[in-house]
């Protein structure tokens, strides 16, 4: 077996010898490199405390050293994302970033900032989001709804956003368009260049979340020029909790809670250099593995699809637009996704059905125009980098084994059509 399969812990419930995690859509275990980079910033001489930006402010020379490291790390992040070349010759228009405790906080921060700095000032109180966006998009705005904002949800059709519906909902009162660049569970991409063009023409602030896209798809920031970029760093293998918010030079940003001068006064609470270093390494790692993901993992996905297609009961749920190279959604006719995923987990293979911050997979697929009964058969997998062929074969074998075992639940459909 390859390196990803690992012996599983002894359990009375599950008897599988190995386990394979194909469910790392929203978060993954922290990378060893990211943890090492974070550890290197912990100052053991000073009783092992984290190096915080303002600890010992004005009392010793440590502050200047930490501040330098902090700024250097932020610059490196901007560089890894390719944002440093956007803007004027010497200065990027994306030079301001804050480290948050999570991707959800970063999204909430954008929404609240736009509300306090623009909506209340100008009376433009409409926000456009996708109906299929992850939970933080909805929950952050739901808090603001009683304060007078209007949330417009844009329909998604097969593949991605319905551009006609989107355009019809852009009004002179629209202050913000907020959306994830890719759907983490299905892997479908939004036509962001077209969306950005419409927003820029109408002077509407654009916020994109790149948690599911980074290192897996080329993001043309030069064309998109979003006002706000957010990122859930734990999805990339950074030490968590961690998230990142980068803003364009002229975009407004205010703190959710005031009271701490860390991070230019844009976010209260200690700014942890070790976490930022971990985030930096995780972002670099994601960008460095771009080739591997888009070529090798994409090839493995095609092979997996080919192997799975041998079963005549298989259903693939794919978008008609560009898709993430490592995500595959499938199901077996007549077997509910939850039951299938549970049976796979008993065999040591973990797949995703959505949930937590991500939307429910079946509802997401239904929103793309698929019959709901069929959509309920779906499970989603994200192929990790470094999966060996033998591991892939093992996974296919287990998937078929489970599907065959559960096939007995759907004989009525085959022998006695309802």
């Amino acid at each position, binding site marked *: 077996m390859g390196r990803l399969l690992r012996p599983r812990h002894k359990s*009375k*419930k*599950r*008897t599988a010898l190995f386990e394979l995690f194909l469910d790392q859509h929203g978060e993954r275990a922290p990378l060893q490199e990211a943890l090492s980079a974070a550890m290197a910033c912990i100052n053991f001489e000073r009783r092992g405390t984290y190096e915080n930006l303002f600890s010992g402010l004005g009392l010793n020379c440590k502050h200047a050293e930490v501040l330098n490291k902090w700024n250097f790390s932020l610059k490196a992040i901007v560089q890894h994302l390719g944002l440093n070349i956007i803007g004027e010759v010497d200065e990027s228009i994306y030079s301001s970033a804050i480290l948050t405790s999570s991707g959800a906080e970063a999204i909430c921060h954008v929404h609240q900032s736009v509300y306090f700095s623009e909506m209340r000032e100008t009376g433009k109180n409409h926000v456009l989001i996708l109906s299929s966006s992850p939970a933080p998009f909805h929950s952050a705005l739901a808090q603001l709804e009683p304060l007078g904002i209007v949330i417009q949800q844009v329909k998604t059709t097969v593949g991605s956003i319905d551009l006609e519906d989107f355009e019809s909902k852009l009004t002179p009162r629209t202050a913000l368009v907020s959306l994830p660049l890719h759907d983490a569970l299905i892997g479908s991409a939004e036509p962001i260049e077209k969306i950005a063009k419409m927003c820029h023409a109408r002077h509407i602030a654009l916020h994109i979340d790149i948690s599911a896209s980074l290192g897996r798809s080329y993001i043309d920031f030069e064309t998109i020029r979003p006002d706000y970029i957010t990122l859930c760093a734990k999805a990339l293998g950074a030490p968590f909790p961690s998230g990142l918010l980068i803003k364009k030079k002229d975009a407004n940003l205010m703190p959710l809670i005031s009271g701490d001068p860390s991070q230019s006064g844009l976010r209260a609470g200690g700014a942890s250099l070790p976490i930022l270093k971990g985030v930096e390494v995780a972002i670099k790692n994601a960008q460095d593995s771009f080739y591997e993901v888009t070529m090798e993992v994409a090839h493995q996905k095609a092979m997996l699809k080919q192997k799975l297609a041998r079963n005549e009961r298989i259903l693939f749920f794919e978008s008609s637009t560009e898709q993430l190279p490592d995500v595959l959604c499938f199901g077996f006719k*007549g*077997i*509910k996704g*939850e*039951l299938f995923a*549970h*049976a796979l*987990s*008993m065999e040591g293979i973990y797949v995703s059905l959505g949930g937590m911050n991500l939307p429910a997979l*079946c509802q997401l697929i239904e929103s793309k125009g698929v019959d*709901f*009964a069929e959509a*309920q058969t779906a499970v989603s997998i994200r192929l990790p980098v470094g999966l060996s062929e033998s591991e892939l074969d093992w996974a296919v074998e287990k998937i078929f084994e489970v599907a065959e*075992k*559960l096939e*007995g*639940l*759907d*004989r*009525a*459909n085959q*022998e*006695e059509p309802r």
Partner: protein
Amino acid sequence: MKPFVWNRYPEKMCAVLKELKFAGLLTSEEAEARLLLLKKGEIGEKMLGNWAKIYALIDPNEGIFLSCRYQAFADSALVAALDVTCGFIEGKNYLQAQRITGEIIEQLLTEESSESFPKELKEHINLAILCVDALTASCEGIPTPSTPLPMPGVSAAGRVEGFEMLSKEQKIKAIEGVIAQDIRPFIELDQGGIEIKDLTGYKLTVTYAGACTSCPSSIGGTLSYIAKVLKEKVHPSLDVEPDLEALASLYESQASLY
């Protein structure tokens, strides 16, 4: 914050899901070949993801389910509930099956497990019961000679610790707990009942009620089952005897009716 519901599945439920014994289909051809009737009970909607259908081959003279299978497009909790339900009603007549309760299904899914059945999934147990109800409703009119219910196997569980040291009231309370959980639900399937009359040393006297009073099994198979369960789960020295005086007076009053 609770762990994800799958991690709270009892071990027995996981074992059931690992090997679904009763998933499948029974056909009318099969029923005809065995001179039996095919009956079906269906609930839910595929669209809602809670569809289930139980198929049963029933003896037209005795009303006993000789074979049960089910089809489902549902969550793992409902599938597990259906699997144990089919196993439980097989060999019983449809009137007995009609009296299956949520507690019985829950017990079948949790026996010998350290965890209890997840609270938020109990509606799936109710769906399995509704499916049995739909099945038994389709069996109306089939004759059912009264046959005592075969008792389930006794599961090995911890005995009451320090039983000898307890007061009489505490001992009776401990015995009552085991009767309520492991004995009464099964007896009630046959419209019977059981109460504790007295405890003298290790001799427990019980009084029967309902259908048990006229059933010969109450001093035979059922009695030995009760004794076995109490020996296993309370104390190995416990002896159980029926309240013969009450039984005799009942027999006399019934005989005088004829």
